[in-house]
């Protein structure tokens, strides 16, 4: 149902754009007219705004950290994704204007991993590259940066992507030890050096381990997710059921060859990898046996209903529509409106999708019913269930979001139907591109018009993007 206030000419055009039947109410010249018209088949193209398209997207298999990728470096994975994209699209290496890559846990030797990976993947050394970071929505940020560069007329073809490598993370010396070591560099005399060495105590040798924890609150993400689930009354059973659903659907998608964005990757010294290895459909009984991982003993978030530490990289090719067509590509989807949101990093750390979804829908002039394909990032089953409950709650919308009514929860049959981060894996900065590519593929496969990507991220941030199928 739609209520608008338009001139009769607009109305005419509007009706023409629709093909499926739907009741619409129009108000114009103080008269209310009800007409049965098609369900939205209109395009979200806006006059004066460039159409930006997703040409294609690929990813390396997502593997549990510490498995086959264990001896690589982050830029190796990124390289594999970039090369895979080149192979898949047949893109000339010098046709890319710019490369943007996301990463979360930085390898200090390759802090601009975008540039190192691009060089290593054989892109022209004349193509500049930069790295962005925004926790779990880093590659979303890479993609929207690309969209921005194209929309502003500065570039025509941009590669975006993201990489995360959890098999090796920077473990640092303690601050005291680092301070001593740095002073040691500056010490001029042997005496000064010896006295510095003598000041080292056993306790200074204890390393600093990185943790998936908020800097501002020092709370680990799993702990926060558990509290969030409790706040929304999400039971352990619901979480386990959702996790099982994710694994089951992922398995099905994998077996029926739907995960076509996955490229094969010959790991140096190991075999060719061509499948995600974290998909493990289990039984409810087995899952129920697990002890809570964060809040003990009464918590509900367990290893089985959380996303696991993953290694992986993804990459997409984004172009202006004209350029893509000029180069002879058949694009997969339009990248349309997107939003970033942020809220309290303590109690609403993982509620990004709840805040971002209504905002981006409003921006596009769509409702939840217009969306055919939903791809939400599954950080924790409890987090997804909490978001679904929040989106379904008028009280929450009114009290915390300043909205009159709820936006509504997505129907489950359209939701993450090829699995999600819980089962496929979640290499933090690579997930965003996987979500967008999956939406494009699902729209093609299922014949839908609009898709919605939404994700939460550390720091209490969130993102959502509307994707429109490219006419077949």
């Amino acid at each position, binding site marked *: 149902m739609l209520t608008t206030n338009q001139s009769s000419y607009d109305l005419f055009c509007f009706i023409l754009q629709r093909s499926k039947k739907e009741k619409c109410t129009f108000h114009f010249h103080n008269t209310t007219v009800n007409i049965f018209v098609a369900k939205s088949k209109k395009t979200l193209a806006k006059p004066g705004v460039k159409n930006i398209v997703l040409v294609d997207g690929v990813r390396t298999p997502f593997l549990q950290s510490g498995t086959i990728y264990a001896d690589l470096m982050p830029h190796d994975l990124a390289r594999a994704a970039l090369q895979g994209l080149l192979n898949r699209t047949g893109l000339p290496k010098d046709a890319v204007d710019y490369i943007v890559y996301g990463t979360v846990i930085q390898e200090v030797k390759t802090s601009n991993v975008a540039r190192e990976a691009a060089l290593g993947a054989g892109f022209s050394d004349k193509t500049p590259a930069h790295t962005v970071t925004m926790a779990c929505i880093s590659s979303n940020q890479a993609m929207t940066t690309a969209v921005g560069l194209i929309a502003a007329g500065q570039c025509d073809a941009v590669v975006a992507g993201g990489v995360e490598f959890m098999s090796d993370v920077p473990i640092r010396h303690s601050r005291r030890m680092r301070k001593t070591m740095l002073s040691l560099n500056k010490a001029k005399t042997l005496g000064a050096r010896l006295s510095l060495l003598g000041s080292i105590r056993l306790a200074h040798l204890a390393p600093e381990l990185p943790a998936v924890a908020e800097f501002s609150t020092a709370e680990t993400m799993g702990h926060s997710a558990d509290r969030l689930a409790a*706040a929304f*009354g999400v039971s352990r059973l619901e979480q386990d059921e959702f996790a099982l659903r994710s694994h089951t659907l992922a398995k099905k998608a994998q077996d029926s060859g739907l995960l076509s964005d996955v490229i094969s990757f010959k790991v140096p010294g190991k075999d060719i990898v061509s499948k995600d290895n974290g998909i493990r459909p289990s039984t409810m009984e087995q899952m129920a046996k697990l002890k809570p991982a964060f809040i003990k003993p009464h918590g509900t978030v367990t290893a089985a209903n959380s996303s696991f530490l993953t290694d992986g990289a993804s990459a997409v090719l984004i172009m202006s529509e004209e350029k893509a067509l000029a180069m002879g590509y058949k694009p997969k989807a339009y990248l349309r409106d997107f939003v970033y949101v942020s809220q309290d990093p303590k*109690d609403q750390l993982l509620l990004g999708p709840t805040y971002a979804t209504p905002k981006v829908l409003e921006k596009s002039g769509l409702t939840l019913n217009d969306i055919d394909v939903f791809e939400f990032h599954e950080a924790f089953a409890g987090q997804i269930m909490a978001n679904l409950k929040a989106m379904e709650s008028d009280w*929450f919308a009114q009290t915390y979001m300043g909205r009159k009514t709820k936006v509504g929860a997505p129907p489950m049959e359209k939701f993450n139907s090829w699995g999600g981060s819980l089962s496929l894996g979640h290499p933090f900065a690579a997930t965003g591109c996987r979500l967008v590519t999956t939406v494009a593929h699902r729209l093609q496969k299922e014949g839908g018009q609009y898709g919605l990507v939404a994700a939460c991220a550390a720091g209490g941030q969130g993102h959502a993007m509307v994707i429109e199928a490219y006419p077949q």
Partner: protein
Amino acid sequence: IKGDVAVVRMNDPNSRVNTLSTQMQREMTEVMDEIWGNNAVQSVVLISSKPGSFIAGADLNMIQACTTAEEVTGLSQEGQRMFEKVEKSPKPIVAAINGSCLGGGLELGLPSAFDMILTGRSIRADKAKKMGLVHQLVDTLGPGLKSPEERTIEYLEEVAVEAARGLAKKQIPLTKEKGLMQSNYFLAEIQDYVMSYPFVRQQIYNTVQNKVMKQTKGLYPAPLKIIECVKAGVEQGPTAGYLVESQHFGKLAMTPESKALIGLYHGQVTCKKNRFGTPEKEVKTLAILGAGLMGAGIAQVSVDKGFHTILKDTTLEGLSRGEQQVYKGLNDKTKKKSITSFERDSFLSNLTGQLDYNGFNKADMIIEAVFEDLSIKHKVLKEVEAMIPPHCIFATNTSALPIKDIAAVSKRPEKVIGMHYFSPVDKMQLLEIITTDKTSKDTTASAVAVGLKQGKVIIVVGDGPGFYTTRCLAPMLAEAVRVLQEGVDPKKLDGLTTGFGFPVGAATLADEVGIDVAAHVAEDLGKAFGSRFGGGNVEVLKTMVEKGFKGRKSGKGCYIYQPGLKRRDVNTEALEILESYKLTSSDSDVQYRLVSRFVNEAVLCLQEGILANPVEGDIGAVFGLGFPPCLGGPFRFVDSFGADKLVEKMRKFEEVFGNQFTPCQLLLDHAKDPSKKFHK
């Protein structure tokens, strides 16, 4: 009742917090009986329906309502019976505690544990878990489908019910790790063995008793009685122990110390309210002039309450020192883990340090904390008034200068008010607000609102030299100087004053306040009030200041202060100065000489209308000047000591020293008529 778990929700409809009242005890016993009678119930959960409060302890009003020790003993025994009932429960009980759980509340909360001796310390939840006081922690929740408070309690109840069920089915052991349990068991064995020797026990009692005596100087009877209770319990068995406990509790409730402390509690609650109503405009931006000890201290207690705070000084060095003080204050809290480093940073983002008047056009209140000199204060007031918006309040932080003198150059005297903070601002609870007859009611309401938000206990007093607190302190310090001149060693003087119940000795206090400030105040007030404020020779203080002995801040005063050293030596050079002003010793009751002048001045302030009521007088003296809390403040002291006895003592001193000890009219009235009391 949820399945086989009974949930007992405590909610006192008449109060903000739950207390252990007679009614509550009765109802609890009834409920417990019912639960034991019900076979369907396997376990119990005790929970409070009030967010943030389990049980705040015994009902003070209930104790106050008792007139005899026997009545209180009776109450105590009833309470014991209730606790015993909970403790001996055949069905497991889980106490689900959300928020404060004090005194008897804690005893109820920990039925499976032990009878407790409580110090006045507050323990954070995670600490309590480590100490083994609680078994399981439940996190507070954020927004969900209901308000966070409501949902947190619900969640707590759900978790508690599960735990109770687990306990009843013996699925959850009470003590968790095996290794820990064994080592505890081993320790307990040794403890039992050792404790079986009466000699060892006696030794422990003595050690504890000595420690208590050292801390309380025997002025607070309760801790000693607690030791006696434990002793009786251990030596003669629990029944005798409980009996002794209830009897002692009854006796203690009737002591003047108990009355004094309960009085202070009620007074403090009163002084945490704004009797001037809600101000028209809420203060959001606060500008503080002068980044000295006081200015920075005021900034520190403001930034963490959400005030946007401008801290202005005239020199970069001064400003830097002030900002460092604010940072250090907050960082110390971070180190103690009472705030996170992130909270520290976000609090500090409320602070703007600057040398100019930029942004003063948006300030809602100015608090001036520049040097105590009328001409400087005038200059600052005029400068600032040219920069601030019309609604902005000008508060002056002074310990002695009359506000009306400062306000004399103001174009808007109705917006001028005194806010006397005490050093160190972040530790001292009192704020003395001084109004002139021109200060508007809204200005006062606003100042009180700001002070309350800063977490202060507030007294509002009339204008006059020294207001209330400084005016009471000055004669006592004058007397202290005289005592020193008479040849009493500063350490001896400190011992005498702390022995009376002051938390800080008179000589140390002078060093803390600053000898220069003391000299300044003594001279000013001496001029204003004449010979009544005499006593010690002001020249003593002046000579000390000339020599650079300004107290703690300059490293030397009555004592020598060395950074990092706790031990302080008496400043022998100061003794030389005292020697040169030596008076013949009049060797009389030093303690009462000091206290009677203090008390007389306080009563005079009430008589003159500087004080609105005795409650604020007591609160101001205890929280601002460290008047012995066990005496409850100068007015309660007169009530309990007897005005007639005090007047009698003063008359004796008057014969020796003159009019400094002449009792004021109000005190004489009370002496004549024993039925007159300051506190009903």
